[in-house]
């Protein structure tokens, strides 16, 4: 607001004149402008404190118990096959070191989940347009209990950093959507240094993320010693526990991907895709993958926050996974040893809290416990040991005896 002036050749003079007429400057006397709004003054009285902490301890102890229970309902087994190609017996099954296995089942069953067997053999694997010899790792493991659906099959990578600054951006969203993004755009984009090959052909999908995709393949687990089913008098040699590779990624992710509109002669697969696209993209034979349907790819593109991560590989939502000995064959092409990484797979049931994780329950119980202890302390302290009268004026600093020498404090004497 412009103040009135004594001397003034400008319009403010006129303002000044009119200002004197009515109390123009009087501030409105409203609750808001006068800061008199209705409010609750949060005074932490002993009563309130005790109520709050009692409430907290009840809530957290209750939830803690529930979450702990949930975590313990989960059954899972995880087998680390990183060293399969080097350590596993060739062609014949041998025992797998127990430290490669972790499992959670409820105890007393004859099948010991920690006793697994593995072997490695070289097999010719049929790829798009060619076959090539690959190490195939076969692992036999025990599942002592029936697993209720959903049973999920995850692969687990350790020490793989999907979260580096350049890595996380190293893809081209438009290209993945199917757009034929031209080379000029791709070059110098976040896809560098995997934007084009030596011949200047665009790499599709470009970027280091797609290039580094985990390319081991897992079979569905096969039950080796199936129990006799009702009405079936021949014990089958084995039963495949069929796991689907669809529905393993969030359905919404499909919106981010599309069939590429590139001409095949313009593009090359990323260098690491050599394993599957040895001769590049060839029309009719080695078509580029349909990313929209490739949920493994989509899952891979969900860049994990931490260097140790699980990704869902396959799942079965209908069938109970019977207890027994299962076999999984893995085409082992992804070398984790070079980067000190490890890989494993996990078969687990799922609860509303997801897979097995005891920590939430523990945390809740700890918090609840602490609140309970504090609550007891507060009750003892505020009500029994040395209760302080609410609003006791003798606590005011100017009523303190130490300040008696000062004026104003004289009143306290």
């Amino acid at each position, binding site marked *: *607001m*412009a*103040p*009135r*002036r*004594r*001397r003034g*050749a*400008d*319009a403010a003079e006129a303002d000044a004149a009119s200002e004197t007429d009515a*109390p123009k400057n009087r*501030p*409105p006397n409203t609750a808001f402008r006068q800061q*008199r709004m209705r*409010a609750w*003054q*949060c*005074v*932490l009285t002993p009563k309130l*404190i005790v109520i*709050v902490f009692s409430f*907290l301890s009840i809530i957290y102890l209750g939830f803690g118990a529930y*979450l702990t229970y949930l975590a313990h309902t989960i059954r899972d087994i995880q087998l680390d096959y990183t060293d399969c190609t080097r350590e596993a017996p060739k062609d014949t099954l041998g025992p797998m070191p127990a430290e490669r296995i972790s499992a959670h089942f409820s105890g007393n069953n004859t099948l010991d989940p920690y006793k697994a067997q593995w072997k490695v053999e070289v097999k010719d694997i049929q790829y798009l347009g060619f076959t090539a010899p690959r190490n195939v790792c076969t692992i036999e493991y025990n599942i002592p209990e029936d697993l209720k659906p959903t049973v999920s099959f*995850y692969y687990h990578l350790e020490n793989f950093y999907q*979260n*580096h*600054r350049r*890595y996380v951006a190293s893809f081209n*969203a438009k290209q993945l*959507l199917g757009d034929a993004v031209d080379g000029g755009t791709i070059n110098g984009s976040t896809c560098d240094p995997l934007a084009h090959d030596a011949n200047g052909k665009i790499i599709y999908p470009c970027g*280091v993320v797609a290039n580094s995709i985990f390319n081991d393949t897992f079979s569905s687990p096969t039950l080796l010693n199936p129990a006799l089913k009702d009405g079936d008098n021949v014990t089958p040699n084995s039963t495949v526990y069929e796991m689907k590779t669809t529905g393993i990624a969030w359905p*919404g*992710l499909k*919106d*981010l991907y599309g069939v590429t509109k590139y001409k095949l002669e313009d593009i090359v697969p990323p260098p690491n895709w050599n394993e599957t696209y040895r001769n590049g993209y060839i029309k009719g034979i080695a078509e580029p993958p349909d990313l929209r349907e490739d949920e493994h790819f989509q899952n891979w593109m*969900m*860049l994990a*926050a931490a*260097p*140790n991560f699980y990704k*869902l590989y396959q799942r079965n939502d209908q069938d109970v996974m019977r207890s027994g000995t299962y076999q999984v064959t893995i085409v082992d092409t992804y070398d984790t040893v*070079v*980067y000190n990484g490890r890989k494993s797979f996990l078969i687990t049931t*799922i609860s509303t809290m*997801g*897979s097995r*994780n005891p*920590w939430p329950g523990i945390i*809740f119980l700890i918090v609840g416990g602490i609140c309970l202890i504090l609550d007891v302390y507060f009750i003892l302290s*505020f009500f029994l040991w040395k209760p302080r009268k*609410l*609003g006791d*004026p003798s606590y*005011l*600093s*100017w009523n303190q005896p130490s300040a008696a020498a000062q*004026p*104003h404090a*004289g*009143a306290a004497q």
Partner: protein
Amino acid sequence: MVNRQPEEEEAGDQPPLSMQRSRWATRKLTVKSSSLKRLSLVHRKHNRAASNEKKRASGGSESLRQTDGAGNTDGASVTSDGDGDAPRTVFFNLPLPDELKDEEGRPLQQYTRNKIRTAKYTPLSFIPKNLWFQFHNIANIFFLFVVILVIFPIFGGVNPGLNAVPLIFIIVVTGIKDAVEDYRRTILDIELNNAPVHRLSGWENVNVEEDNVSTWRRFKKANSRFFGKIWYSIESLWKRKDVEPSRKISAIYDDPRASIETRTTPWESVGSPRSRQSFVSAREEIQMTPVPSPLPPQPAKGELHPGAEGPRGPSTSEEAQAHFQNVKGDLINQEIPISGKARFHKDAWKNLVVGDFVRIYNDDELPADIIILATSDPDGQCYVETKNLDGETNLKVRTAARCGRTLKHARDCERAQFIVESEPPQPNLYKYNGAIKWRQRLPGNPHGEPVEMSEGLTIDNMLLRGCNLRNTEWALGIVLFTGHDTKIMMNAGITPSKRARIARELNFNVICNFGILLVMCLIVAIANGSSWAKTDASLYWFEYGSIGGTPGLTGFITFWAAIIVFQNLVPISLYISLEIVRTLQAFFIYSDVGMYYDKIDQPCVPKSWNISDDVGQIEYIFSDKTGTLTQNVMEFKKASINGQPYGEAYTEAQAGMNKRMGVDVGQESAKIIAEIAAAKVRAIQGLRELHDNPYLHDEDLTFIAPDFVEDLAGKNGLQQQRANEHFMLALALCHTVITEKQPGDPPKITFKAQSPDEAALVATARDMGFTVLGMSSDGIDLNVMGEDKHFEVLNTIEFNSSRKRMSSIVRMPDGKILLFCKGADSVIYSRLKRGEQSELRRETAQHLEMFAVEGLRTLCIAERQLTEQQYIDWRKEYDLASTALEHREEKLEVVADKIEQELTLLGGTAIEDRLQDGVPDSIALLGDAGIKLWVLTGDKVETAINIGFSCNLLNNDMDLIRLQVIEDESGDSTEDEYLRLAEADLDKGLAKFGMTGSDEELKHALKDHEPPAATHGLVIDGFTLRWVLSDGLRQKFLLLCKQCKSVLCCRVSPAQKAAVVSMVKHGLDVMTLSIGDGANDVAMIQEADVGVGIAGVEGRQAVMSSDYAIGQFRFLQRLVLVHGRWSYRRLAETISNFFYKNMVWTWAIFWFQVFCNFDISYIFDYTYILMFNLFFTSVPVVLMGVLDQDVSDTVSLAVPQLYRRGIERLEWTQTKFWAYMLDGIYQSVVSFFIPFVFVVLTAAASGNGLDIAERTRLGCYIAHPAVITINTYILINTYRWDWLMLLVVALSDLFIFFWTGVYSMATTSAGSFYQSAPQVYQELTFWMCLIVTPTICLLPRLVVKCIQKQRFPYDVDIIREQIRLGQFASIEGKTAAEGTPVDENGIEGASAGSSESSTRRGKAKHAHYASVDEDRRPIYPPSVTTTHNTRTQNGSDGTNYTMHDRDRRSLDARLEEDEITEMDQEMPVRPSIDRARPSYDRIRASMDRVRPSLEASNDFTSAARLSRIESSHSAQGQSSGQRRFNLTTVRKRGLSAFSKKSIDP
């Protein structure tokens, strides 16, 4: 306005007995003061150079000070060093000597232009300059740097444009704010620079050559002209409104004013006896000494001045001088032809240059420092009001240089040939040294050699910029100092840009955070570099090379990337938010209806929006007196005439006294006010019946005394009627006021006087039917009860501060010669005739004492009948003395003293220096809050002490320490002597407290914020202050002051005010607040951390330079105790919470780096990072800063002690900062790792087994609880949960959900974040996480808070509990709608002590009071002498503040410490007239109550003292020699010494 000129002209040939006034000019003697003052100013400037160099620079660039130095080569005596610091010589109608010209004949010296600019910017320079200033802020540079970093994608910045938005926003907002603030100043500057003044044009001013420019400067000039044009065109675009009036002004300029200068001025007057010539003017102290002329003789022609007498040689003897012989100095060289072109034209102030002639008309404001050459008064006198300079509203007399008085017209100016040699510009308001030199033919020797003449110029001949000419038709002068060289400008502080203390301290914390940031980034860089050095990591195999190529370079790049990511550690949003918070705080301060002053429609207007928190930490308040504490309205309230007390009044002081006595003030005052109103009606009725006085305006009546009116009507006998009449007559005759008739029906007569008290006396005489119609040449015209009478005034002996009295010698219509004398009671009593009127004197003394108790200023009126012979004898002596050449003033005093004896007491008067409403209450309240209030005033010591008592700053229990170094007029004393004296004084004072002024004591003092006990007060005057502020003594002075409850600094100049403020501010490292209303307060207002201006009726300078403008002093309590405290607490909390919340957020990002090889990738979606400080968390914290209240305003005022936390600055401490920081880090750990544990340590944290461990989804898991934690934390730290706060917290919390939903669902461009919301929100893990994370985060804080509140409660916690218990319900009910001070009775529960003491109060004996709370103690009425112990009294030796009433007790304590008189009690009032006198009875009752304490103190009432010192001065037979000696002592030591000497047997 009275046109005194014709009257004086008629009196051209003065009859021997015509009225003669001997004027003792009210100038202050200053010896050796300027240099020191200058030093102190320099020091002051130095102190704040850092903050102010901007201002200086701008001022300098605007003025034409640039000197190229090239012209200095010829070694002229005048050095133009650009600052104008060299003595200046100004030439009038004389060519410049060669050495002052350069090769091209242009003047060498460049003077500062009269155009001033206080604004920082011009529209053109605004953008670069403002940006330049803004980027002085280290944080802004950092933000700019980050913005630049983000532009390079290599550092991983996501969106440079978006990133720059906050910085641009804050720069623009700050810029706009600066612009708005500066715009006001610009407007004012323009207004001032274009104000009209009459300047002589058509005449060549040789001193300044506008076109004197070298090529380079011409280029610069052309530039500035070009830019000026742009400026004006821009201006005219912006401010179309302003164009019109300025055009009008320019139209006026073209119009030569048909004014006074064309009117014939009677030359005859010059030929009066007054102008008889001699080399020495006997009647003035100005000496004109011929000096040998080195100049070649000029052609000897021309005529003698009319009326000149025979020639006198330079060797005129003393005797000859005594015969009024003098040469009439005349600047006009009659030989010069008149061109006739010269005219006084209206021109703008800014066009004035040094050497211009100007004519100033009545009421004009002076545009520059001007030497007066002539005025409309033939005596060359003019009146000025110097309120803008020193705050005094009375009129001061300034005199034209004697030699210039012949100048009347423009044509005279053309012919005046002279040189003015002047000292360089300096800021001392009371000192100036210069000389006019001219050559003149000696009278009687018309053809002889012109003699070189010179006349000294002092401050008496100078009109200073900023003053107003009053009661003088015109004054003609020459411009000597312009623009920034003027004294007012040199005194004015530099417009400071104030920054709140917290803002300054924040820099340290910001630097701390920079440190943390650097450490974080360094860790990140090193760790990241070494990660990239690995060959057995996934990055080596899958990422095809690092960003930097080599690990080292990669680490280096990562370092900068980390700075971008962690930039929130030094949150730019903090600065934005604080700006917003402060602005809104200012808005609410503006909105407070409790600080709205309806009389002038003035709310509290914050001018600086960013220092509201400083208001909450004020420890020292420096207040001006006049217009700030007082209304500067003097009202005649009571009188004691012939032993009868008259008058009804209820003063603030009395209200305060009653309050302390436990009277219900509200009820009581309402009752009394009603009584007074009724009395007023009766009185007016009575007066009208008696005589329908046309000059009496009912509303102006201040002396409400129906009984007086009755007595005047003769209802109680003739004797009393006569006495009353005579008393009023005395009032009407004994004064020096100037009447002003205001036309109207009925006509109004108002009075202007050098002292407002005097005007009040004369005004009351008018109201009672004794109207002064005017002063004629030989007397005063009175209207006595409708009858016009003329009283011949033979002599008027004017008031001065050492005499403390004035007298008029009047020939009454019946032929008797009466001397009326009025003055301080002790002065009058000591001159009463021995052995008479004993009963009357006793009664009057008692009445005066009671008046004084009420806080009224008392004067005594006495008369003396003179025989014709007595008068004639005395007159001879007087005339001789008045023509003395040496010690004239002292001689005059001796002569005056001779006649002012043997007086007969008529009575006494009591005038109220009206305090502003509620001042004592406010001061008491502020005192309770622990704030120390010092009064810095330009007023007299006596007045200041008087006010000190009425507003409870001083009381009678206090031992007044008077620091006084007596000024030696001879100038013999050296600076060292003064310093030694001052130091001795200080040591004496410090010794009382057992201190020595050592550094340890200072160290201790720095920590001690407790207000000192109310045992000592300190009074110091400006001259002494000058010495104690010197480097060596400052510390001692400071320590001494700190021990005193009240400090009064009197007679201080604006610069000294600022110096005192600066001393306390820097010396004690405390927050200071200055409050004032006049331009003389500007410097201190600017110097203090917070400047408050009282928007009064007159003068806006203080308001313009202040940070807060309020209407009344009492609003200060609300501003400081309520808004200041709130703002400080709020801001401290806001800042802490801000740092905290950014710690949580930033460190959460940091923890993630541990899991990504410190490769600086975001855990959060990028929009979260943008939104975090914008929407997720900033609004609650801002709202907390704006609206939070720990206790309401009423409770804040009821329990002012709560303010002390602010004084001790406990709300914003480094401990608090680090506690919040650590809390933030702890919470960041929790916020990051709890979700991490929930999500990452398991294959799938989702209920359907799908992947939720993706980076940005984990970000969701972290961000949501973090935001809720932060907002809840802020809510917990908020005391007051109103619906708005809760709503905003809720909305902020919901907003992150809303945003996540909208952003992740709407478009696939969210990338990997796409569809996060439904995925995350459907997980139980998420919700569990959302519950448990905030709980764990907040648990420590909550527990600490619970324990603190219960076990170690702060004061405010207790008070809040009391509020909860309903103890404040009674006062809370009375909302602050009216802004009335809260009744303290309501808080009995608040401080238990108060109830105790109040119960004890009734029966307590005096002995107990020492231990009782000072506030609760019954007040000892101010003028009652009480417990002074002699030991302490020694320290205040040399007091001279014995003027009106209270102060006298220190005097008699010394004089009469072991005498006891029984006269004090039970002195019967002469029971002649029996009537109800409510006011009188009231005071008597109060006095009786304190009587026991008086007895206990074994001391005397002032009434008793007066009766003892009465007539002491009427002793006969003192030789004049001895008298002379006494008087010189008196002049030096003040009246206390005077009385002492006289009483000594």
